[in-house]
């Protein structure tokens, strides 16, 4: 080491390195995390397929086919049909090159034989292409919209949501690895809006509004979590012309039904609930579709977790979105509280619901991927079950 600066640097870096805490996450936990990631990727594919099946049934009955099953592939077209389902083409929304074959493949995947390509764009994080597809049921109140992330000619992942015709579309699309997504915003036809303000909020983090310019009616924002967009405001020269909650729509119905009974619900803006039918339990991030909430649906396919209840075990409900969601679970009967141990050494005691399904949701703001151990503690203070995530 030839200079004083280099010696200082050497000493300082060795000194600062000592500030780092010890690594507490074991290889087994990492292997399970990796397995969960793999399962999520597979399940996302399954969700896409399931959504396709649902829409296939609906489309076969309703999309102007006179009840003919819509299992036949869509008629090949010489070029992608670019339309807003309600009112005609919007070529300005095609902002990334995509082949006819890929569009046909995506439409077939979603059984949208009568659906259309609404928009294409390059995702900001992965640089992959997202297709926005829409399909409207004849005479129906809702329009189905899909985002499909593609890499070359491969369809990677999709999300589904339902809107009223002419609605502002704001929907997460997978953008990179499993936890990464971007919000795709398609402004309503003819809007004079020039920008969109998207508010994101996450447990334990600041509420942040982000301003994104609309480019010919389309905008994208990289999200810290698919659930994190909590408010959207369309603006024209700084004035708000539309203000809404993105959860005004709902995503795919991939959770076992019925799960009508809510055991636990947080009181946050987007409540986190554990719901059960007695045999299974699911953690959901929810939002009423419209006031008064006649029903509650999850709106994020990455933010749910379900288990078949086993009363002898402490079961965790950890969503795929393990960085930005929260820990929930179901404890054995007789549990007084669940003690959660975090990677940084902190411990959180979470009360369980006074219910035949003793469920809990942690609201301390800790991230699920930092959980190292959970213990069910009975009213006598004894551990009755434990689980490592």
């Amino acid at each position: 080491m030839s200079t004083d600066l280099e010696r200082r640097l050497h000493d300082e870096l060795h000194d600062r390195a000592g500030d780092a805490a010890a690594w507490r996450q074991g290889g087994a936990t990492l292997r399970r995390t990796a397995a969960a990631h793999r399962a999520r990727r597979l399940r996302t594919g399954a969700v896409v397929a399931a959504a396709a099946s649902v829409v296939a049934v609906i489309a076969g009955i309703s999309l102007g086919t006179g009840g003919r099953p819509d299992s036949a592939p869509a008629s090949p077209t010489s070029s992608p049909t670019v339309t807003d389902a309600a009112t005609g083409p919007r070529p300005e929304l095609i902002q990334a090159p995509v082949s006819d074959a890929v569009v046909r493949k995506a439409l077939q995947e979603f059984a949208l034989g009568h659906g259309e390509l609404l928009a294409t764009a390059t995702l900001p994080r992965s640089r992959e292409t997202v297709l926005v597809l829409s399909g409207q049921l004849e005479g129906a109140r809702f329009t189905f919209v899909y985002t499909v992330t593609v890499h070359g000619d491969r369809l990677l992942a999709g999300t589904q949501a339902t809107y009223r015709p002419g609605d502002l579309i704001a929907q997460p699309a997978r953008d990179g690895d499993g936890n990464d997504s971007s919000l795709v915003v398609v402004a309503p036809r003819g809007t004079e809006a020039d920008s969109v303000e998207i508010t994101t909020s996450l447990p334990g983090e600041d509420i942040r509004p982000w301003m994104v310019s609309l480019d010919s009616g389309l905008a994208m924002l990289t999200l810290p979590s698919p659930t994190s967009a909590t408010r959207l405001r369309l603006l024209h020269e700084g004035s708000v012309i539309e203000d809404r909650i993105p959860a005004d729509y709902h995503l795919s119905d991939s959770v076992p039904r019925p799960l009508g009974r809510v055991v636990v619900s947080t009181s946050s803006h987007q409540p986190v609930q554990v719901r059960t039918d007695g045999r299974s339990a699911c953690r959901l991030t929810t939002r009423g579709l419209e006031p008064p909430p006649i029903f509650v649906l999850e709106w994020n396919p990455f933010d749910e977790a379900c288990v078949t209840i086993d009363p002898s075990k402490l079961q965790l409900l950890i969503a795929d979105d393990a960085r930005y969601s929260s820990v929930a679970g179901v404890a054995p009967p007789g549990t007084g509280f669940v003690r959660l141990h975090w990677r940084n050494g902190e411990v959180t005691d979470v009360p369980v619901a006074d219910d035949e399904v003793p469920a809990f949701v942690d609201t301390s703001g800790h991230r699920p991927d930092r959980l190292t151990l959970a213990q069910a503690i009975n009213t006598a203070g004894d551990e009755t079950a434990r689980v490592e995530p």
Partner: protein
Amino acid sequence: MSREAPGNRPRRVTKGVETPGVDEMVGGRDLPDVVAHGRADHDAEFDAFVAGSGSRLLRTAYLLTGDQRAAEDLLQDALLRVWSRWSRVRAAEHPLAYARRVLVTTSVSRWRASRTRTAGERLVAEPPETSTHQSEPDRDDELWQAVLSLPPRQRAVMVLAYYEDLTDADTADVLGCTVGTVKSQRAKALRSLRVRLAEEER
């Protein structure tokens, strides 16, 4: 300054590139280069590697990020990537060197991704208040802040050279660049640090 490997250090050659010697192996011991292990051995070796090297890698991650939580996130991502290639890593690579390479490249690529993210966006929330952190005596806060202000690639070069004590050749291997690039990046980083420290003293 040219940084060369100490002559008495045992070294192995992987894919034509020298990697650090056995004194840097997991927990002070080498992992067996046995391919035909059962699944349990395969998993156990990874567990042993994480147990033996996790804290050491976390210290490197901390120097790369300057933040404990960010360092934990970075290391978790890196270890997941190491695990996804563990069969090849344990058979053909020095696990610690490989993990360090993944750690550094993940750190740099994250920065690139965050730079992409901010393009075209404007954060309109108020910035957080300035920290009231009190400096500890005998710590070179100016130098530390100056290191943190370096671009990630230059910071990585500093950490690999002055904390990991890697040679220029090993640093180039970790970063996937030439030795010449390492030397120029290190020179630029040192120059930036000198300028910054001189400004602080004024």
